[in-house]
Protein backbone atom coordinates (compact mmCIF):
# COMPACT_ATOMS: atom_id res chain seq x y z
CA UNK A 1 0.00 0.00 0.00
CA UNK A 2 2.86 2.35 0.88
CA UNK A 3 4.51 1.51 -2.43
CA UNK A 4 1.37 2.37 -4.37
CA UNK A 5 1.02 5.65 -2.46
CA UNK A 6 4.64 6.51 -3.19
CA UNK A 7 4.18 5.75 -6.89
CA UNK A 8 0.97 7.83 -6.98
CA UNK A 9 2.41 10.84 -5.14
CA UNK A 10 5.69 10.56 -7.06
CA UNK A 11 3.84 10.48 -10.37
CA UNK A 12 1.81 13.58 -9.47
CA UNK A 13 4.90 15.45 -8.28
CA UNK A 14 6.93 14.55 -11.37
CA UNK A 15 4.04 15.25 -13.72
CA UNK A 16 3.57 18.73 -12.24
CA UNK A 17 7.29 19.40 -12.41
CA UNK A 18 7.55 18.27 -16.05
CA UNK A 19 4.46 20.30 -16.94
CA UNK A 20 6.23 23.44 -15.69
CA UNK A 21 9.23 22.84 -17.95
CA UNK A 22 9.03 24.43 -21.39
CA UNK A 23 11.42 21.80 -22.74
CA UNK A 24 9.70 18.75 -21.28
CA UNK A 25 6.11 19.82 -21.87
CA UNK A 26 5.70 22.60 -24.45
CA UNK A 27 8.42 21.34 -26.77
CA UNK A 28 7.46 17.70 -26.18
CA UNK A 29 3.99 18.55 -27.46
CA UNK A 30 5.15 20.73 -30.33
CA UNK A 31 8.02 18.53 -31.55
CA UNK A 32 5.96 15.56 -32.80
CA UNK A 33 3.60 18.01 -34.52
CA UNK A 34 6.37 18.96 -36.95
CA UNK A 35 6.82 15.32 -37.89
CA UNK A 36 3.08 14.69 -37.93
CA UNK A 37 2.64 17.61 -40.33
CA UNK A 38 5.25 16.19 -42.69
CA UNK A 39 3.69 12.73 -42.46
CA UNK A 40 0.22 14.16 -43.17
CA UNK A 41 1.53 16.00 -46.24
CA UNK A 42 3.35 12.90 -47.46
CA UNK A 43 0.48 10.47 -46.95
CA UNK A 44 -2.06 12.96 -48.34
CA UNK A 45 -0.03 12.96 -51.55
CA UNK A 46 -0.55 9.21 -51.71
CA UNK A 47 -4.31 9.91 -51.94
CA UNK A 48 -5.43 6.96 -49.78
CA UNK A 49 -7.66 8.16 -46.87
CA UNK A 50 -6.93 4.96 -44.92
CA UNK A 51 -3.21 5.63 -45.00
CA UNK A 52 -3.86 9.13 -43.70
CA UNK A 53 -5.72 7.65 -40.70
CA UNK A 54 -2.85 5.19 -40.28
CA UNK A 55 -0.36 8.07 -40.23
CA UNK A 56 -2.53 10.20 -37.95
CA UNK A 57 -2.81 7.54 -35.26
CA UNK A 58 0.90 6.75 -35.59
CA UNK A 59 1.88 10.40 -35.27
CA UNK A 60 -0.31 10.71 -32.17
CA UNK A 61 1.45 7.83 -30.42
CA UNK A 62 4.88 9.10 -31.55
CA UNK A 63 4.40 11.95 -29.09
CA UNK A 64 4.18 9.58 -26.13
CA UNK A 65 7.55 8.14 -27.02
CA UNK A 66 9.06 11.59 -27.61
CA UNK A 67 7.92 12.76 -24.20
CA UNK A 68 9.39 9.64 -22.62
CA UNK A 69 12.71 9.03 -24.36
CA UNK A 70 14.56 12.25 -23.58
CA UNK A 71 12.98 13.03 -20.20
CA UNK A 72 13.30 9.49 -18.84
CA UNK A 73 16.78 9.09 -20.30
CA UNK A 74 17.99 12.14 -18.43
CA UNK A 75 15.94 11.53 -15.25
CA UNK A 76 18.88 10.66 -13.01
CA UNK A 77 21.08 13.38 -14.48
CA UNK A 78 18.31 15.86 -13.70
CA UNK A 79 18.27 14.74 -10.07
CA UNK A 80 22.06 15.15 -10.02
CA UNK A 81 21.72 18.75 -11.17
CA UNK A 82 19.09 19.39 -8.54
CA UNK A 83 21.38 17.86 -5.91
CA UNK A 84 18.67 15.44 -4.82
CA UNK A 85 20.01 12.15 -6.19
CA UNK A 86 21.97 11.12 -3.10
CA UNK A 87 19.03 11.97 -0.83
CA UNK A 88 16.65 9.89 -2.94
CA UNK A 89 19.05 6.94 -3.06
CA UNK A 90 19.56 7.11 0.72
CA UNK A 91 15.80 7.19 1.40
CA UNK A 92 14.35 4.03 3.00
CA UNK A 93 12.05 3.40 0.02
CA UNK A 94 13.47 1.27 -2.77
CA UNK A 95 14.95 3.56 -5.41
CA UNK A 96 12.88 1.96 -8.15
CA UNK A 97 9.76 3.34 -6.41
CA UNK A 98 11.23 6.79 -7.04
CA UNK A 99 12.12 6.06 -10.66
CA UNK A 100 8.93 4.29 -11.79
CA UNK A 101 6.80 7.43 -11.25
CA UNK A 102 9.32 9.41 -13.31
CA UNK A 103 8.88 7.01 -16.24
CA UNK A 104 5.11 7.10 -15.86
CA UNK A 105 5.03 10.90 -15.59
CA UNK A 106 7.10 11.35 -18.75
CA UNK A 107 4.78 9.00 -20.63
CA UNK A 108 1.75 10.83 -19.23
CA UNK A 109 3.01 14.08 -20.78
CA UNK A 110 2.51 12.13 -24.01
CA UNK A 111 -1.25 12.41 -23.51
CA UNK A 112 -0.94 16.11 -24.32
CA UNK A 113 0.98 15.19 -27.48
CA UNK A 114 -1.57 12.59 -28.46
CA UNK A 115 -4.57 14.88 -28.07
CA UNK A 116 -2.82 17.79 -29.80
CA UNK A 117 -1.73 15.66 -32.75
CA UNK A 118 -5.20 14.19 -33.24
CA UNK A 119 -6.74 17.68 -33.12
CA UNK A 120 -4.05 18.95 -35.50
CA UNK A 121 -4.85 16.19 -37.98
CA UNK A 122 -8.59 16.74 -37.65
CA UNK A 123 -8.62 20.53 -37.90
CA UNK A 124 -5.87 21.19 -40.44
CA UNK A 125 -5.90 18.04 -42.53
CA UNK A 126 -9.53 16.96 -42.14
CA UNK A 127 -8.63 13.49 -40.91
CA UNK A 128 -11.71 11.83 -39.46
CA UNK A 129 -10.35 9.41 -36.87
CA UNK A 130 -12.67 6.44 -36.35
CA UNK A 131 -13.43 5.06 -32.89
CA UNK A 132 -14.92 1.64 -33.63
CA UNK A 133 -14.34 0.19 -30.17
CA UNK A 134 -14.42 2.99 -27.58
CA UNK A 135 -14.14 0.67 -24.60
CA UNK A 136 -11.11 -1.11 -26.02
CA UNK A 137 -9.58 2.26 -26.91
CA UNK A 138 -10.15 3.43 -23.34
CA UNK A 139 -8.07 0.46 -22.18
CA UNK A 140 -5.53 0.53 -25.02
CA UNK A 141 -4.39 4.12 -24.36
CA UNK A 142 -3.59 3.65 -20.64
CA UNK A 143 -2.01 0.28 -21.42
CA UNK A 144 0.24 1.97 -23.97
CA UNK A 145 1.10 4.76 -21.54
CA UNK A 146 1.89 2.33 -18.73
CA UNK A 147 4.06 0.10 -20.89
CA UNK A 148 5.96 3.02 -22.42
CA UNK A 149 6.32 4.49 -18.92
CA UNK A 150 7.79 1.17 -17.76
CA UNK A 151 10.21 1.29 -20.68
CA UNK A 152 11.06 4.84 -19.60
CA UNK A 153 11.86 3.52 -16.13
CA UNK A 154 14.15 0.87 -17.60
CA UNK A 155 15.90 3.49 -19.74
CA UNK A 156 16.35 5.77 -16.73
CA UNK A 157 18.08 2.98 -14.81
CA UNK A 158 20.10 1.73 -17.76
CA UNK A 159 21.55 5.22 -18.41
CA UNK A 160 22.27 5.88 -14.72
CA UNK A 161 26.06 5.79 -15.10
CA UNK A 162 26.07 7.89 -18.27
CA UNK A 163 26.76 11.58 -17.77
CA UNK A 164 25.16 12.65 -21.06
CA UNK A 165 22.15 10.39 -20.81
CA UNK A 166 19.91 12.96 -22.49
CA UNK A 167 21.90 12.47 -25.69
CA UNK A 168 21.24 8.73 -25.63
CA UNK A 169 17.56 9.30 -24.85
CA UNK A 170 17.32 11.77 -27.72
CA UNK A 171 19.14 9.37 -30.04
CA UNK A 172 16.53 6.68 -29.35
CA UNK A 173 13.69 8.87 -30.61
CA UNK A 174 13.96 8.27 -34.38
CA UNK A 175 14.82 4.54 -34.23
CA UNK A 176 11.77 3.73 -32.11
CA UNK A 177 9.55 5.87 -34.35
CA UNK A 178 10.91 3.89 -37.29
CA UNK A 179 10.88 0.32 -36.06
CA UNK A 180 7.71 0.31 -33.92
CA UNK A 181 5.37 0.80 -36.84
CA UNK A 182 4.18 4.31 -36.02
CA UNK A 183 4.36 5.50 -39.61
CA UNK A 184 6.00 2.62 -41.45
CA UNK A 185 4.46 -0.87 -41.54
CA UNK A 186 6.84 -3.47 -40.11
CA UNK A 187 6.51 -5.46 -43.33
CA UNK A 188 8.46 -2.75 -45.17
CA UNK A 189 11.46 -3.04 -42.87
CA UNK A 190 14.30 -5.56 -43.37
CA UNK A 191 13.53 -9.07 -42.05
CA UNK A 192 15.86 -8.75 -39.05
CA UNK A 193 14.07 -5.66 -37.70
CA UNK A 194 10.55 -6.93 -36.73
CA UNK A 195 11.84 -9.34 -34.03
CA UNK A 196 13.43 -6.29 -32.34
CA UNK A 197 10.16 -4.37 -32.75
CA UNK A 198 8.18 -7.17 -31.07
CA UNK A 199 10.29 -6.83 -27.93
CA UNK A 200 9.32 -3.18 -27.64
CA UNK A 201 6.09 -2.16 -25.94
CA UNK A 202 5.43 0.83 -28.24
CA UNK A 203 4.93 -1.61 -31.13
CA UNK A 204 2.10 -3.40 -29.30
CA UNK A 205 0.66 -0.18 -27.91
CA UNK A 206 0.52 1.27 -31.40
CA UNK A 207 -1.17 -1.90 -32.69
CA UNK A 208 -3.66 -1.89 -29.82
CA UNK A 209 -4.69 1.72 -30.44
CA UNK A 210 -4.99 1.16 -34.20
CA UNK A 211 -7.01 -2.03 -33.76
CA UNK A 212 -9.33 -0.39 -31.23
CA UNK A 213 -9.74 2.67 -33.39
CA UNK A 214 -10.38 0.96 -36.71
CA UNK A 215 -12.23 -2.06 -35.38
CA UNK A 216 -10.00 -5.08 -34.99
CA UNK A 217 -8.81 -7.29 -32.18
CA UNK A 218 -6.87 -5.09 -29.76
CA UNK A 219 -6.97 -7.43 -26.75
CA UNK A 220 -3.87 -9.52 -27.61
CA UNK A 221 -1.91 -6.31 -28.21
CA UNK A 222 -3.11 -4.86 -24.90
CA UNK A 223 -2.09 -8.06 -23.13
CA UNK A 224 1.37 -7.82 -24.71
CA UNK A 225 1.66 -4.23 -23.47
CA UNK A 226 1.01 -5.35 -19.91
CA UNK A 227 3.31 -8.36 -20.20
CA UNK A 228 6.20 -6.34 -21.63
CA UNK A 229 5.57 -3.55 -19.12
CA UNK A 230 5.83 -6.06 -16.27
CA UNK A 231 9.03 -7.47 -17.79
CA UNK A 232 10.58 -4.00 -18.09
CA UNK A 233 9.75 -3.22 -14.45
CA UNK A 234 11.22 -6.53 -13.26
CA UNK A 235 14.44 -6.04 -15.23
CA UNK A 236 14.55 -2.41 -14.12
CA UNK A 237 14.26 -3.27 -10.41
CA UNK A 238 17.05 -5.88 -10.69
CA UNK A 239 19.18 -3.41 -12.63
CA UNK A 240 18.54 -0.71 -10.02
CA UNK A 241 19.94 -2.96 -7.30
CA UNK A 242 23.00 -3.71 -9.40
CA UNK A 243 23.61 -0.07 -10.40
CA UNK A 244 23.25 1.20 -6.84
CA UNK A 245 25.53 -1.51 -5.47
CA UNK A 246 28.23 -0.56 -7.99
CA UNK A 247 27.74 3.17 -7.37
CA UNK A 248 28.10 2.70 -3.61
CA UNK A 249 31.13 0.44 -3.95
CA UNK A 250 32.92 2.87 -6.27
CA UNK A 251 31.54 6.07 -4.72
CA UNK A 252 30.50 7.09 -8.22
CA UNK A 253 26.85 8.03 -7.82
CA UNK A 254 27.42 11.71 -8.47
CA UNK A 255 29.71 11.04 -11.47
CA UNK A 256 31.98 13.88 -10.39
Amino acid sequence: MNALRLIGVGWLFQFKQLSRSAFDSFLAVLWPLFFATIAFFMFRQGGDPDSLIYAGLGAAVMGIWTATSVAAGSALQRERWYGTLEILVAAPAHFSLILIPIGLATASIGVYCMVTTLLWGRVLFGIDFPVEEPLALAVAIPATLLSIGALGFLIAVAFARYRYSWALGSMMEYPIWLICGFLVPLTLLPDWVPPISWSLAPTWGMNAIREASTGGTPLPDIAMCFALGAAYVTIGVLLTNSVLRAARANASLSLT
Partner: protein
Amino acid sequence: MTSLRIFAVGGLISFRALFHWLAPSIYIPSLVVAPLFQILLFAYIGRSAGLASDEFYVVGNAIQYAAIPCLFAMTNIVGGEKFQQTLGAILVSPAPRLPLFFGRAVPVVVNGAFVAAFALLAGTIVLGVDIPASAIPSLAVVILVAAFSCTGLGLITAALALRVRETAVLTNILFGFLLIFTGANIPLDDLPGWMQNVSDVLPFTHAIAAARELADGASLTSVLDLIGEELLIGLVYAVLGYSLLRFFEIQGRRHATLDRS
Protein backbone atom coordinates in the same frame (compact mmCIF):
# COMPACT_ATOMS: atom_id res chain seq x y z
CA MET B 1 45.98 42.32 -36.08
CA THR B 2 44.05 42.23 -32.79
CA SER B 3 40.83 41.85 -34.72
CA LEU B 4 42.29 38.96 -36.68
CA ARG B 5 43.39 37.27 -33.44
CA ILE B 6 39.96 37.75 -31.89
CA PHE B 7 38.38 36.39 -35.08
CA ALA B 8 40.56 33.26 -35.39
CA VAL B 9 41.81 32.33 -31.92
CA GLY B 10 38.83 33.71 -30.02
CA GLY B 11 36.41 32.00 -32.35
CA LEU B 12 38.08 28.61 -32.07
CA ILE B 13 38.49 28.72 -28.28
CA SER B 14 34.92 29.87 -27.84
CA PHE B 15 33.60 27.06 -30.04
CA ARG B 16 35.55 24.43 -28.12
CA ALA B 17 34.53 25.86 -24.78
CA LEU B 18 30.89 26.54 -25.42
CA PHE B 19 29.72 23.85 -27.81
CA HIS B 20 29.51 21.04 -25.26
CA TRP B 21 28.37 18.61 -27.93
CA LEU B 22 31.98 18.25 -29.06
CA ALA B 23 32.42 15.48 -26.48
CA PRO B 24 32.26 12.15 -28.36
CA SER B 25 29.63 10.87 -25.92
CA ILE B 26 27.25 13.58 -27.18
CA TYR B 27 28.62 14.14 -30.68
CA ILE B 28 28.24 10.55 -31.86
CA PRO B 29 24.63 9.94 -30.74
CA SER B 30 23.42 13.44 -31.64
CA LEU B 31 25.34 14.41 -34.76
CA VAL B 32 26.38 11.09 -36.28
CA VAL B 33 23.69 8.51 -35.43
CA ALA B 34 20.60 10.73 -35.21
CA PRO B 35 20.87 12.25 -38.72
CA LEU B 36 21.22 8.79 -40.21
CA PHE B 37 18.03 7.66 -38.49
CA GLN B 38 16.23 10.83 -39.58
CA ILE B 39 17.16 9.94 -43.15
CA LEU B 40 16.01 6.34 -42.69
CA LEU B 41 12.74 7.41 -41.06
CA PHE B 42 11.71 9.67 -43.90
CA ALA B 43 13.02 7.38 -46.63
CA TYR B 44 10.86 4.57 -45.25
CA ILE B 45 7.85 6.86 -44.81
CA GLY B 46 8.39 7.84 -48.44
CA ARG B 47 8.43 4.18 -49.44
CA SER B 48 5.34 3.52 -47.31
CA ALA B 49 3.42 6.41 -48.87
CA GLY B 50 4.71 5.45 -52.33
CA LEU B 51 6.32 8.83 -52.96
CA ALA B 52 9.76 10.04 -53.97
CA SER B 53 12.95 8.03 -54.32
CA ASP B 54 15.35 7.38 -51.43
CA GLU B 55 17.75 9.89 -52.97
CA PHE B 56 15.21 12.67 -52.39
CA TYR B 57 15.15 12.04 -48.64
CA VAL B 58 18.86 11.29 -48.26
CA VAL B 59 19.91 14.59 -49.83
CA GLY B 60 17.14 16.65 -48.19
CA ASN B 61 17.58 15.38 -44.65
CA ALA B 62 21.39 15.23 -44.72
CA ILE B 63 21.62 18.92 -45.59
CA GLN B 64 18.75 19.94 -43.32
CA TYR B 65 20.35 18.20 -40.34
CA ALA B 66 23.17 20.77 -40.44
CA ALA B 67 20.60 22.94 -38.66
CA ILE B 68 21.24 21.13 -35.38
CA PRO B 69 24.97 21.96 -35.06
CA CYS B 70 24.62 25.37 -36.70
CA LEU B 71 21.67 26.64 -34.66
CA PHE B 72 22.68 25.12 -31.34
CA ALA B 73 26.34 26.14 -31.54
CA MET B 74 25.54 29.71 -32.56
CA THR B 75 22.92 30.06 -29.84
CA ASN B 76 25.50 28.89 -27.33
CA ILE B 77 27.64 31.90 -28.24
CA VAL B 78 25.37 33.81 -25.94
CA GLY B 79 23.55 31.07 -24.02
CA GLY B 80 26.78 29.31 -23.02
CA GLU B 81 28.48 32.53 -21.92
CA LYS B 82 25.39 33.41 -19.92
CA PHE B 83 25.31 29.97 -18.28
CA GLN B 84 29.00 30.22 -17.37
CA GLN B 85 28.51 33.80 -16.16
CA THR B 86 31.12 35.15 -18.55
CA LEU B 87 28.78 37.11 -20.81
CA GLY B 88 29.21 40.33 -18.86
CA ALA B 89 33.01 40.07 -19.02
CA ILE B 90 32.87 39.50 -22.79
CA LEU B 91 30.54 42.38 -23.48
CA VAL B 92 32.33 44.81 -21.22
CA SER B 93 35.59 44.18 -23.08
CA PRO B 94 36.67 46.67 -25.77
CA ALA B 95 37.01 43.88 -28.37
CA PRO B 96 35.49 44.86 -31.71
CA ARG B 97 32.19 43.05 -32.07
CA LEU B 98 32.43 42.10 -35.75
CA PRO B 99 35.42 39.72 -35.39
CA LEU B 100 34.17 38.68 -31.94
CA PHE B 101 30.87 37.31 -33.23
CA PHE B 102 31.79 36.30 -36.78
CA GLY B 103 34.97 34.56 -35.62
CA ARG B 104 32.77 32.32 -33.52
CA ALA B 105 30.67 31.49 -36.56
CA VAL B 106 33.49 30.01 -38.68
CA PRO B 107 34.03 26.76 -36.72
CA VAL B 108 30.25 26.38 -36.59
CA VAL B 109 30.02 26.48 -40.38
CA VAL B 110 32.80 23.91 -40.74
CA ASN B 111 31.23 21.58 -38.17
CA GLY B 112 27.75 21.95 -39.69
CA ALA B 113 29.13 21.11 -43.13
CA PHE B 114 30.93 18.06 -41.71
CA VAL B 115 27.75 16.76 -40.06
CA ALA B 116 25.75 17.18 -43.27
CA ALA B 117 28.46 15.60 -45.42
CA PHE B 118 28.80 12.62 -43.10
CA ALA B 119 25.02 12.13 -43.03
CA LEU B 120 24.93 12.27 -46.82
CA LEU B 121 27.70 9.70 -47.09
CA ALA B 122 26.17 7.37 -44.49
CA GLY B 123 22.68 7.72 -45.98
CA THR B 124 23.83 6.90 -49.51
CA ILE B 125 25.75 3.84 -48.30
CA VAL B 126 22.99 2.46 -46.05
CA LEU B 127 20.17 2.99 -48.56
CA GLY B 128 22.28 2.18 -51.61
CA VAL B 129 21.67 5.53 -53.28
CA ASP B 130 23.82 6.14 -56.32
CA ILE B 131 25.38 9.60 -56.50
CA PRO B 132 27.94 10.18 -59.27
CA ALA B 133 31.49 10.64 -57.97
CA SER B 134 31.88 13.68 -60.20
CA ALA B 135 29.17 15.43 -58.16
CA ILE B 136 31.05 15.16 -54.87
CA PRO B 137 33.16 18.38 -55.12
CA SER B 138 30.09 20.37 -56.18
CA LEU B 139 28.02 18.84 -53.38
CA ALA B 140 30.76 19.85 -50.93
CA VAL B 141 30.42 23.46 -52.08
CA VAL B 142 26.63 23.34 -51.71
CA ILE B 143 26.86 21.81 -48.24
CA LEU B 144 29.32 24.48 -47.13
CA VAL B 145 27.05 27.24 -48.41
CA ALA B 146 24.05 25.62 -46.71
CA ALA B 147 25.92 25.48 -43.40
CA PHE B 148 26.92 29.13 -43.81
CA SER B 149 23.35 30.11 -44.56
CA CYS B 150 21.96 28.34 -41.49
CA THR B 151 24.72 29.76 -39.32
CA GLY B 152 23.45 33.18 -40.41
CA LEU B 153 20.07 32.23 -38.99
CA GLY B 154 21.92 30.97 -35.93
CA LEU B 155 23.27 34.48 -35.35
CA ILE B 156 19.66 35.62 -34.97
CA THR B 157 18.95 32.91 -32.40
CA ALA B 158 22.19 33.89 -30.66
CA ALA B 159 20.85 37.43 -30.41
CA LEU B 160 17.50 36.19 -29.13
CA ALA B 161 19.37 34.25 -26.46
CA LEU B 162 20.07 37.66 -24.91
CA ARG B 163 16.34 37.84 -24.26
CA VAL B 164 15.04 34.26 -24.21
CA ARG B 165 15.81 31.84 -21.39
CA GLU B 166 14.78 28.57 -23.08
CA THR B 167 17.17 28.65 -26.03
CA ALA B 168 16.99 24.87 -26.50
CA VAL B 169 13.25 25.15 -27.05
CA LEU B 170 13.73 28.02 -29.50
CA THR B 171 16.33 26.22 -31.62
CA ASN B 172 14.36 22.96 -31.66
CA ILE B 173 11.29 24.82 -32.91
CA LEU B 174 13.34 26.45 -35.65
CA PHE B 175 14.71 23.04 -36.61
CA GLY B 176 11.15 21.75 -36.91
CA PHE B 177 10.12 24.64 -39.14
CA LEU B 178 13.13 24.08 -41.38
CA LEU B 179 12.21 20.39 -41.62
CA ILE B 180 8.76 21.26 -42.94
CA PHE B 181 9.40 24.35 -45.03
CA THR B 182 12.68 23.72 -46.84
CA GLY B 183 11.52 20.89 -49.06
CA ALA B 184 13.71 18.37 -47.25
CA ASN B 185 10.81 15.89 -47.19
CA ILE B 186 7.85 17.53 -48.89
CA PRO B 187 8.32 18.69 -52.49
CA LEU B 188 7.86 22.47 -52.47
CA ASP B 189 5.16 22.23 -55.16
CA ASP B 190 3.00 20.24 -52.74
CA LEU B 191 3.07 22.97 -50.11
CA PRO B 192 0.38 25.69 -49.98
CA GLY B 193 1.35 28.96 -51.67
CA TRP B 194 2.07 30.85 -48.46
CA MET B 195 4.36 28.08 -47.28
CA GLN B 196 6.25 28.15 -50.58
CA ASN B 197 6.73 31.89 -50.11
CA VAL B 198 8.18 31.29 -46.65
CA SER B 199 10.43 28.52 -48.04
CA ASP B 200 11.98 30.96 -50.49
CA VAL B 201 13.53 33.01 -47.70
CA LEU B 202 14.70 30.17 -45.47
CA PRO B 203 18.17 28.62 -45.30
CA PHE B 204 18.54 25.20 -46.99
CA THR B 205 15.65 25.53 -49.48
CA HIS B 206 17.88 26.48 -52.41
CA ALA B 207 20.83 24.39 -51.23
CA ILE B 208 18.68 21.26 -51.06
CA ALA B 209 17.28 21.95 -54.53
CA ALA B 210 20.80 22.48 -55.88
CA ALA B 211 22.13 19.33 -54.19
CA ARG B 212 19.30 17.24 -55.64
CA GLU B 213 20.09 18.50 -59.14
CA LEU B 214 23.78 17.77 -58.63
CA ALA B 215 22.98 14.27 -57.37
CA ASP B 216 20.99 13.76 -60.56
CA GLY B 217 24.06 14.61 -62.62
CA ALA B 218 23.71 18.37 -63.20
CA SER B 219 26.85 20.49 -63.40
CA LEU B 220 27.90 23.06 -60.82
CA THR B 221 27.43 25.91 -63.27
CA SER B 222 23.80 24.93 -63.85
CA VAL B 223 22.98 25.40 -60.15
CA LEU B 224 25.01 28.53 -59.55
CA ASP B 225 21.83 30.62 -59.36
CA LEU B 226 20.50 28.42 -56.53
CA ILE B 227 23.82 28.56 -54.71
CA GLY B 228 23.90 32.32 -55.14
CA GLU B 229 20.40 32.66 -53.65
CA GLU B 230 21.35 30.45 -50.71
CA LEU B 231 24.47 32.53 -50.13
CA LEU B 232 22.48 35.75 -50.30
CA ILE B 233 19.92 34.45 -47.80
CA GLY B 234 22.75 33.48 -45.45
CA LEU B 235 24.31 36.94 -45.76
CA VAL B 236 21.01 38.68 -45.05
CA TYR B 237 20.46 36.53 -41.94
CA ALA B 238 24.04 37.13 -40.79
CA VAL B 239 23.65 40.91 -41.11
CA LEU B 240 20.27 40.78 -39.39
CA GLY B 241 21.66 38.57 -36.64
CA TYR B 242 24.65 40.82 -36.05
CA SER B 243 22.42 43.90 -35.94
CA LEU B 244 20.11 42.18 -33.45
CA LEU B 245 23.07 41.14 -31.31
CA ARG B 246 24.26 44.74 -31.17
CA PHE B 247 20.73 46.01 -30.51
CA PHE B 248 20.04 43.60 -27.65
CA GLU B 249 23.51 44.21 -26.23
CA ILE B 250 22.86 47.96 -26.11
CA GLN B 251 19.39 47.37 -24.68
CA GLY B 252 20.85 45.00 -22.10
CA ARG B 253 23.39 47.60 -21.00
CA ARG B 254 20.81 50.35 -20.88
CA HIS B 255 18.32 48.39 -18.81
CA ALA B 256 20.84 46.25 -16.88
CA THR B 257 19.16 43.10 -18.16
CA LEU B 258 22.07 41.17 -19.70
CA ASP B 259 21.88 38.41 -17.11
CA ARG B 260 18.17 38.73 -16.46
CA SER B 261 17.10 35.80 -18.54
